């Protein structure tokens, strides 16, 4: 395997992705990611010099909406699925130091 994924990398990606892996999952993730990256490295065989990266397969452009209020108060629906709600707001663990 050409790509060796370190513990630090897995830890770092876990911080980015907000995922906490068990020791077993972590070992598996290192292996999987390494082999996936080896596989992705195959793309390096292709000369893509001067090729524009393509986000959308065909050109759609300039899709806009007019600046007109179309939404009514829908607080009740918005909060319907919230795990925690108080005073019309979503409850989260404290964010202030």
């Amino acid at each position, binding site marked *: 395997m050409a790509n060796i994924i370190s513990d630090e990398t897995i830890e770092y990606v876990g*911080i*980015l992705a907000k995922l906490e892996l068990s020791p077993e999952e972590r070992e598996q993730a290192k292996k999987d990611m390494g082999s996936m990256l080896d596989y992705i490295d195959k793309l390096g065989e292709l000369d893509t010099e001067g090729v524009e990266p393509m*986000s959308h397969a065909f050109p759609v452009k300039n*899709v*806009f909406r007019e600046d007109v209020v179309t*939404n009514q108060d829908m607080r009740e629906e918005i909060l319907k699925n919230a795990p925690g709600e*108080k005073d019309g707001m979503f409850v989260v663990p*404290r964010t202030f130091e």
Partner: protein
Amino acid sequence: MSKQYETVIGLEVHVELATKTKIFCGCSTAFGGEPNTHTCPVCTGMPGSLPVLNKQVLEYAVAVGLATNCTITQYCKFDRKNYFYPDNPQNYQISQLYLPICRNGKVEIETEAGKKFVGIHEIHMEEDAGKLIHDEWDDCSLVDYNRSGVPLIEIVSEPDMRSAEEVIAYLEKLRMTIQYLGASDCKLQEGSMRADVNLSIREVGAKEFGTRTEMKNLNSFKAIARAIEGERERQIDLLELGEKVMQETRRWDDNKGESYAMRSKEDAQDYRYFPDPDLVPIVLDDAFLEEIRAKQPEFREEKMRRYKQEFDIPEYDIEIITGSKRMADLFEATVAIGSQPKKVSNWLMVETLRLLKENNMDPEDIRFSPENLAKLISLTDTKAINSSVAKEVFEVMFTENVDPEKYVEEKGLKTVNDEGALRKTVEEVIANNPQSVDDYRNGKEKAIGFLVGQTMKAMKGKADPGMVNQILKELL
């Protein structure tokens, strides 16, 4: 301190655009709604929802770019900035990194040291975050997404500023320009204009920049000035002690007059930007840019030059009046109705400024109409009301934008020009105040002032003081 240091400052200014709706959904941007009442699936990150760009946001951004001499990116895209925080419902912010709407601009500023240009690196469009409120009772935080998705432009300057004065001149310049465009009201206190300060220091003459810090939470010009001074000193102290300045984000506490680092091992500051696949590219042709350019208003400098030529009012007045788009518009509209420029200017410079200050208001919040101001001026011109009644009416007009003619009529404030009635009142005052009458007759000129006052009081202020004076003198 043996060495001489130079402060190098760049600004990231966020401006909330004055659109009716949010950047990617049809929710209102109005202030003051109950929490989460201006939200929908899009701006709360509900699964399956998709963004669609508000065209007005693009037009405002391009207008600001043109006004600040930027090159407009005619093929531009939105990117996602990924980071987890509860005020950010999707846990990514839709912003622009790779192809921002405007680049390479500059604005001219003027300080006591003279004129100079401050470069604008780029301007990009993005969405605002929601609001977090701390709940002491349950020791948790509460999220309100009413502000989530409110359109912002972020104006990123080059590190071209060297002092707090330059920073403030630059901010004033941006504020004027954007207000004049009508793209935002740019109020620092209310957060519709927010500035983050990037600051580093270096020895005078050094070529390389020092390590910079970014300072947030600056919501007044005074706070900005204090934070710049504080951060400059903090960095100099570090260098003098042989320590290093860390590249970090710091939060300014204006009450304590100090800043602290906003650091956490959970903040990797790796935003994994990539083009948002839910939005399509924006391709702007020259005709579109011309259309926006054609709509550009007369900006402050031009306006000041024109006022000097057209109106006979003091230069100081011109500076104050053009210092707010709202005031300048009001001034011109009132003059256009036919009021004398000098008189309009006086109302703005004296009574309006006084009431703004007393009520802790921004000139942009002025509510009364030019029609009503013109009517008030006309009421005084024709002596239909006297100046003290006029001031009283103005105060009501200032807060409630009442029609002065109707108000004066309803409240019966018109000056009594019926000489008979006035003469009768004066006679009564003379009869009731023998002491003052004697004093006056004995050569105490001032005593007549008291008698005028008494008459005005008896007339409930509705008399023309000049006329009262005249009748008094006649009868005495």
